[in-house]
C-alpha cells in the first residue's frame, strides 16, 4: 500500500486508529458528482478512480471520511471543503 502511505504524507487521506479527529464530507442535493470528484482530486491529490470511489461513497452512503489527523489539520481540510461549497464536518474519530 505504498500509494496510500504517500497520500497520507500529502493530505492525510486514509485513517489510522490513533488519529483522534476525522474530516467527513456529507451528501447534499446540489453538488455535482463530477465537481465533487474534481475537488477530491485537486485538494486531496487522489487519483481519479479513488476520487470517484469517495464521491460515490458520499452519494450512496450519505458521507465519507476523507482524512484523519489532528484537530488543527482537520480544521484546515474542513475549511477547504467549505470553500469549495461542499458540506464537511470534523469530529473525534471512533464516534
Amino acid at each position, binding site marked *: 500500500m505504498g500509494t496510500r502511505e504517500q497520500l497520507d504524507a500529502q493530505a492525510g487521506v486514509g485513517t489510522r486508529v490513533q488519529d483522534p479527529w476525522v474530516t467527513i464530507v456529507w451528501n447534499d442535493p*446540489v*453538488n*455535482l458528482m463530477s465537481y465533487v470528484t474534481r*475537488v477530491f482530486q485537486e485538494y486531496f491529490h487522489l487519483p481519479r478512480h479513488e476520487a470517484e470511489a469517495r464521491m460515490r461513497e458520499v452519494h450512496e452512503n450519505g458521507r465519507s471520511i476523507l482524512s484523519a489527523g489532528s484537530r488543527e489539520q482537520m*480544521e484546515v481540510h474542513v475549511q477547504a471543503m*467549505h*470553500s469549495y461549497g461542499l*458540506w464537511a464536518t*470534523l469530529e473525534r474519530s471512533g464516534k
Partner: protein
Amino acid sequence: MKGFAERDGAAVATLDDDERLVIARIVADVGLLLGGEDFGAERQSSLPHREDLAEALAFLDALADSPAEPDDPALLRLLPNAAPEDREVAEEFRRLTQDDLRASKLARLRRIWDELSTEGGEWVVPEADVMATAAALTDVRLVLASRLGLERDEDAEALHEEIARATAALEQASPAEVGIDPERLWLGMVYDALTWLQESLVSLTLGGQR
C-alpha cells in the same frame, strides 16, 4: 446559452445579453448575502436596463433580502456548521475561518461579476480559474437551492420534473391558469441552467489534464 467548451486551453461559454444580466445579478445578490459591498453600486454595469426583465430580476434581489444572520438557511449553506454535535468545536471553527471563507467566496463572485458585466457574448474562463469559477457557481446554486427548499436528492429531481411539466403547460396557458408560482418556476429555471452550465465547465479536461 452555449455551455463551456474548450478553446485555446480555456473554457468558453456563450451567453446572450439577458443571460449575462441574470447571472451577473444573481452573483451580485449572493455577494450581498455574504455581506459584501454592492458590486453594482460601485461600478456601473454596462449591461442595459431591462424593463421587461424587472419582475424576474426582483425575484433574484429577494434572495439577498433576508438579513445576513447566521441562522439564515442560505447563508448556513455557504458557511456551514463544522461540528453540529460539538458546540465548542463549531464556534471555534467559525471564529477562526469565517472571515477568510467570506473573503475568498466574495472575491470569486466578484471576478465573475466583473467578467459578466463587461460587453461581449463570451464568458472565458482560463484553466487556472476553472475550479474557482465552479466553486462560485456552487455557492450561487446553494443559495438558490436553499430558497427552493432542496434538501435531499429527491427534491432536486422533483423540481426538475416540476419545471418540465410547468414549461409544457405554459405553452397553453398563463401561470395563474396553470397554478404555478412564477417566482418558484423562474428561480428553478435559473437553478437548472446554472447546474447545466457548471456541469459543462467541470466536465471539460483542458489541455489534456488528467
